């Protein structure tokens, strides 16, 4: 009774099977992150280290990007408003654009490029060099130590980075507005805060938490599941960035729909 095992028959199609398997793996990975995050022991040192890497070290890059974004966006918006003689509405327009969309998006995209690729490459190389296996052997939970700490760091540091970006971008915009319209700082700030609402602020913060979690989870997943070889490390880093950015835009779209539904009509 020798039964020869042929190639396994796909449940749906090969591609669909692969897609749903990937979905399952991602879901299981995310579920494990939540599970491990709440269960002791807690890797505080590693979390602080990752917060330092993700948050503190990204601050200069994010600040510069936010500052330039503020200036450029103000300058590019002026001609449109100028056509209606409504340049006095520039602070309101900038505030809404920065708080609602630009700051969370710019922060998340820059972080996805810098932090996501870093996490993917780092975990990928650890996987390739079998350091993760070694950790398992040494009774250290590599998932908790490597993945949870990083996801935690990105989830909590991206919103803080976003707040910095808002502040710096508004400053950059103020410089441009002051230079062209000679608006005083007090008037500018008053107009900015007149235009935005609590819903704008809190939706952006919550959105940033989601973006941060996405960057960390995707980076860790891609690195943690990278294929063997140096090629796999590069691929893990690359796909981490591309997938994170893609997901960020998808999430932004969904968040927009939810916030629009919540906004009083």
């Amino acid at each position: 009774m020798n039964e020869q095992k042929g190639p396994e028959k796909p449940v749906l199609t090969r591609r669909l099977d692969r897609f749903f398997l990937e979905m399952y793996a991602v879901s299981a990975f995310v579920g494990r992150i939540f599970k491990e995050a709440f269960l002791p022991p807690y890797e505080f040192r590693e979390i602080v280290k990752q917060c330092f890497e993700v948050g503190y070290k990204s601050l200069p890059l994010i600040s510069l990007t936010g500052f330039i974004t503020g200036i450029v966006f103000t300058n590019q918006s002026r001609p449109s408003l100028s056509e209606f003689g409504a340049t006095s509405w520039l602070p309101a327009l900038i505030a809404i654009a920065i708080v609602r969309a630009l700051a969370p998006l710019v922060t998340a995209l820059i972080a996805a490029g810098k932090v996501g690729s870093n996490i993917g490459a780092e975990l990928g190389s650890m996987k390739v060099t079998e350091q993760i296996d070694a950790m398992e052997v040494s009774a250290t939970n590599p998932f908790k130590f490597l993945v949870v700490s990083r996801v935690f760091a990105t989830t909590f540091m991206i919103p803080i980075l976003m707040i910095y970006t808002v502040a710096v971008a508004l400053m950059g915009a103020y410089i441009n507005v002051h230079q062209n319209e000679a608006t005083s700082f007090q008037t500018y700030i008053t107009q900015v805060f007149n235009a935005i609402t609590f819903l704008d602020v809190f939706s952006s913060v919550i959105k940033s938490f989601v973006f941060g979690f996405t960057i960390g989870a995707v980076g860790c997943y891609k690195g943690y599941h990278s294929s063997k070889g140096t090629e796999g490390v590069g691929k893990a880093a690359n796909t981490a960035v591309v997938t994170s950015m893609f997901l960020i835009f998808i999430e932004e779209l969904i968040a927009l729909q939810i916030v629009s539904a919540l906004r009083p009509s």
Partner: protein
Amino acid sequence: MNENKRSVQVGIFIFLGIVIFIVGVLFLGGQQKRFIKSIEVAAVFDDVGGLKVGNNVWFSGVKIGTVRAIHFYGKSQVEVSMNIEKEAQQYIHKDAEAAISSEGFIGNKIVVIGGGSPQIATVEDGDILRAKTVLGTDQIMETLQENNKNLLKITTDFKGLVSKIARGKGTVGAVLTDSLLAEEFRATVMHLQKAAQNAERLSGSLSSYAGKLQTKGTLANELVTDTSVFAGIRSSVAQLKKTATTAQEIAGKASEAVSKANAASNNFAAASEKLTRSDNAIGTLLNDPQAAADLKTTLKYLGTSSKKLDEDLEAAQHNFLLRGFFKKKAKREAKAAKDSLEQKTP
């Protein structure tokens, strides 16, 4: 040590981020008056024109609250609930009116509270304000549409009018197309120009006169400014008036005398005219040569006869009958002459 430093840096980073966030939230809350005590008032409108929850409420141009809720009321009306700052409550009276307006031409919709009498009590929580209907964009557009129609009628009429003028119809058309009229008009304008030049010269003279009037020490200036001169002039004028009255009286009398002289001269003229005629005695004497010759002959005869009479009388004196009489008469005359001479020389 290195790990400690990193933790501190992360701590500062997080702390500053949270501080910025809290400051922003507080500022936003302050701006939107979220943390200020407020009362709730409402107003019922027929049309809110797109007013939204969170829109501002203004009183005397100052933001005093926000729209809290918008609900349908009755059959088709809309009830707008507003949160009003407790601080502004003392300025809003129960008879105040609420109206839907906008922050600018393209600005957000707002509720404007205005009016209210000071003698009426101030609003309280839960009060319903009277709604004031103001002209909306649609009403303005309707009025504009009506204006457009009127404008079309006016331009149509004007078009017909201009066409008639261009064809030379009517007075204006004739004025514009008739060359003779144009010439006359040109001449009129030239006259007007001259008149204007004269008026200019006159005004120049008047100006210079006025300037002289302003020059101190001159008679004109004194006339205008010096009260004593003016009083003197007034008294002179009064005297002149009296003199004129007297002269008028004299002239009246003279006129009377003249009229009498005139009558006398008329009489004299009539008399002289009669003298030229020969139907009266003197006229005959003056004008009739025959009568003159007769008179001359008569006078000649009279001369001759008087000479003869003289001779006769001389002869009579020497007559004996009358001689005595003449002698006595001569003696009496001589005696009278002697007496008068004696009286003159005492």
